[in-house]
């Protein structure tokens, strides 16, 4: 190497070394936030940060501490409030591991759009957390509740939502991306899952809450919060929520109890689900046709049915179709009459199929939606009946 090249290299090396460890953060300089609660107080926002107490989680201390600590701060904007939290917290807030963001009902009814901007804009937020609405409650109170089994409530809510969506049905895990798409699209309104505080918030924040076998205060997820635009307009009950998920094709696995002739009941496990929604033009007006195809297994039979007979299976299939159709109709009825919000995105489907018709409809879609004829067809198929053909009672008689 020639001396001139060496001279050139000296500034290069200096430049590199002068950056030092730019934006380096050691792990013990961070406060990992597991959940954020956003509430409104007059014109101001109140941000609640649920911060993980790592030593307690990793079981490295013998003294009993709560696994999480919550801090709250007020601000005109969310960002201001988040930064104001540093008055109380010795370390930088680290928001990349936020698993759940909870909106208070009051804020949700006022509109969540403004609150979403920070979540979308700040680079620290990963887009994979779920958002929920605290039903008839402030978000900060929900975040104060200690949970057993999963020690970090933010994580608990996150995994409970995922599990219930995939194994039970009437919840919907909505992430930031989905919410943003729904809010910006025409003819579509979002839903979020609700979260309910069961018991008193005062005992919930005490460590004794998780020392009891029967936990006095819990947070429970369930029921969908229906939005119109970015404002919460009402809640779907459990059956309506299931109907919503059946219409949207969100149901992956669920259990439906169907009543049978003679007072018997049967629990059917839905294992496969597919929904096609089509827009049709009928008598000059737009209409919607929903066709759902279900695959199901018999999960539990509290009756004396002979399940190896094809007529019996036929009967069960029809009963299941009726039941599911009932859920779906209930959801549509509620959306049309109580909420007056097109949470199913029917408008979007009309727009995609008949863009020209949509031009006329779009301005008055709210009214059009209420009058929109919807036809539902459910096709169920029982695939399996479990490991026994006959119910227990009958066999034991013989």
């Amino acid at each position, binding site marked *: *190497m020639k001396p001139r*090249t*060496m001279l050139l*290299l000296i500034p*290069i*090396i200096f430049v*590199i*070394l002068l*950056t*030092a*460890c*730019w*934006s*380096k*953060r*050691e*792990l*013990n300089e*961070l406060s*990992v936030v*597991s959940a954020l609660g956003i509430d409104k107080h007059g014109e101001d926002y109140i941000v609640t940060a649920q911060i*993980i107490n*790592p*030593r307690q*989680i*990793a079981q*490295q201390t013998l003294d009993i501490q709560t696994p999480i600590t919550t801090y709250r701060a007020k601000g005109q904007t969310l960002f201001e409030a988040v930064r104001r939290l540093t008055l109380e917290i010795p370390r930088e807030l*680290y928001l*990349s*591991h936020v*698993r759940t963001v909870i909106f208070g009902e009051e804020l949700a009814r006022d509109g969540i759009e403004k609150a979403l901007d920070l979540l979308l804009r700040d680079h*620290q937020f*990963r887009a994979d957390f779920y958002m929920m609405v605290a039903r008839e409650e402030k978000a900060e109170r929900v975040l104060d509740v200690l949970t057993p089994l999963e020690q*970090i409530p933010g*994580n608990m809510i996150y995994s409970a939502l995922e599990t219930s969506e995939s194994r039970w049905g009437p919840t919907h895990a909505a992430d930031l991306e989905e919410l943003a798409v729904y809010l910006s699209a025409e003819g579509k309104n979002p839903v979020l899952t609700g979260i309910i505080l069961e018991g008193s918030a005062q005992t919930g924040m005490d460590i004794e809450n998780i020392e009891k076998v029967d936990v006095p205060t819990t947070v429970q997820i369930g029921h969908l919060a229906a939005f119109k635009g970015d404002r919460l307009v009402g809640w779907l009950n459990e059956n309506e929520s299931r109907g919503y998920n059946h219409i949207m094709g969100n149901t992956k696995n669920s259990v439906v109890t169907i009543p049978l002739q003679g007072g018997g009941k049967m629990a059917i496990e839905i294992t496969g689900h597919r929904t096609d929604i089509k827009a049709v033009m009928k008598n000059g007006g737009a209409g919607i046709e929903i066709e759902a195809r279900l695959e199901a297994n018999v999960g539990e039979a509290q009756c004396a049915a002979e399940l190896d007979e094809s007529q019996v299976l036929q009967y069960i299939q029809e009963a299941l179709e009726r039941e599911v159709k009932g859920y779906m109709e209930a959801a549509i009825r509620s959306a049309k009459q109580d909420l007056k919000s097109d949470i199913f995105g029917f408008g979007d489907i009309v727009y995609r199929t008949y863009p020209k018709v949509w031009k006329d409809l779009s301005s008055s879609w709210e009214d059009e939606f209420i009058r929109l004829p919807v036809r539902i067809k459910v096709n169920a198929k029982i695939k399996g009946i479990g490991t026994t053909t006959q119910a227990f009672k009958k066999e034991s008689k013989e």
Partner: protein
Amino acid sequence: MVKLVLGFSHSIGQVFIMGYIKRIITRKKPTNNSGQKRSRADKSSLKKNLGENIKTIKGILGQSPDVVVRQFRAGEDGELAVGVIYIEGLADRDLIQDFIISVMMQGRNKTGKDSELSFGDGIFKRLTDLMLPVGDVKDIPDYDSLFSALLTGDTVILINGCKKGLAVSSGGWDKRSIEEPTSQTVVRGSKEGFTETLRTNTALIRRRIKDPSLWMEVKSIGRRTRTDVAVMYIKGVANDRIVEEIHRRLDRIDIDGILESGYIEELIQDETYTLFPTVFNTERPDIAAGALLEGRIALIVDGTPFALLVPALFAHFFYTSEDYSQRADIATLLRLLRYLCFFLTLLIPSFYIAITTFHQEMIPTQLLISLKAQREGVPFPAILEALLMEVTFEILREAGLRMPRAVGQAVAIVGALVLGEAAVQAGIVSPAMVIVVSITAISSFVIPSYNLAISIRIMRFIMMFLAAVFGLFGIAIGLLAIILHLCSLRSFGIPYMMPMSPFVAADQADTLVRVPYWGFFTRPRLIAQTDMVRQQRPSDAEPRPPEGNE
């Protein structure tokens, strides 16, 4: 961008460290040539007078007591004054006693034709033809050849009145027997290892390849040590141009001493300023034989059990002889494991540093919390913590290697306790870092070649600094620089990264994977260039059930 990185990597590696070394090297010009002076002085031929000759020899050897001079008289009436000179310990005393001295002393009675054992030019021919029942006998006309014969263990016979001497091959010194190699052990395969004796080593290879075209050329290198270096190759398989190049490079060596093959390695390698070895060394004759069959060339140096194999490619440092004695599927998996361990031992500490100080969002939440809990109360930043542990480990490793074997246990105990327990308990390092360092260390032992493992150790520290300054970008830059550097290397003209770059499809059968033998019977492309085919129709070698036998 690529050019910049290339220039950057070259610059850091070469200008700042190597350039400095280069300057030191060139500053010291060789000044004394005493060795050469001596050999020039000894070119003079022997004298006629025996006594004078012996005096000169003793004078030059400095009256060293291990030089044995036996003078006696032979011939009819003992009219021939004979001097037998050898070096005790180098020459086989029994052989000299039985086949030289006693034969010559009794010779006059046995032959009866005394007149023939008298003065004259033919006396040495007579001696050789009739009297000396030993294998190798050479004439020595001058002092120079006398000393080289004497100092390799030959016995020199001088006769009064003759201006010539006779060197009888009588080398027989105490040597280590063939033992199991210690540096490259196998579960299955030959347990023979090279020894310090050149002849034993060449014989070990010859025993494996009984081919007349296995050629050997011996050179003596080193002005003072006169170390024999044998160049072995299979004529017609090895590339002649590489053989010539090796000879050229060996002839260029002008040094006073060669004590180990490492001297030769450093003097003939293509690129000095690199962390990667471009000459392969092995203690195992089966690896050497395998390399010869691939068309590579073996350099065997007297006095060391480590033979050199050239050209050496990057992939060679991941092969073991066991790859060829175990089943193909096992060999493939183990080889892939070794490549994996190469990356583990190179990157794990730097990756840990980068992830925990720059990219916390990449860690799963649960893992982050657990790592965070471990780091609570650790007073150092991650890079210092990692350096502390890595350096401690390097110290322990070096200590374990150098210390007397008897105290080795103590180091292991202290090391394990200090590293594993006390440091963590004292909160100086986090348990996760101990795990990281352990994985790094264990992975580095998987690399079968010790000299590559050392270079990875050095690069690991560079990568750690890059990770601490730039995070994952630093690791990416470092890896890019390493790859570019690797691609720029050559070993005796063969691209170091062959058969990956340049890509040779046929050689892939025995690089990352090792397919069954019936799948790849050609020699490596660029190494052997003439006789490429090991077996004409490899598919015939595929085992199958006998036909027509149902």
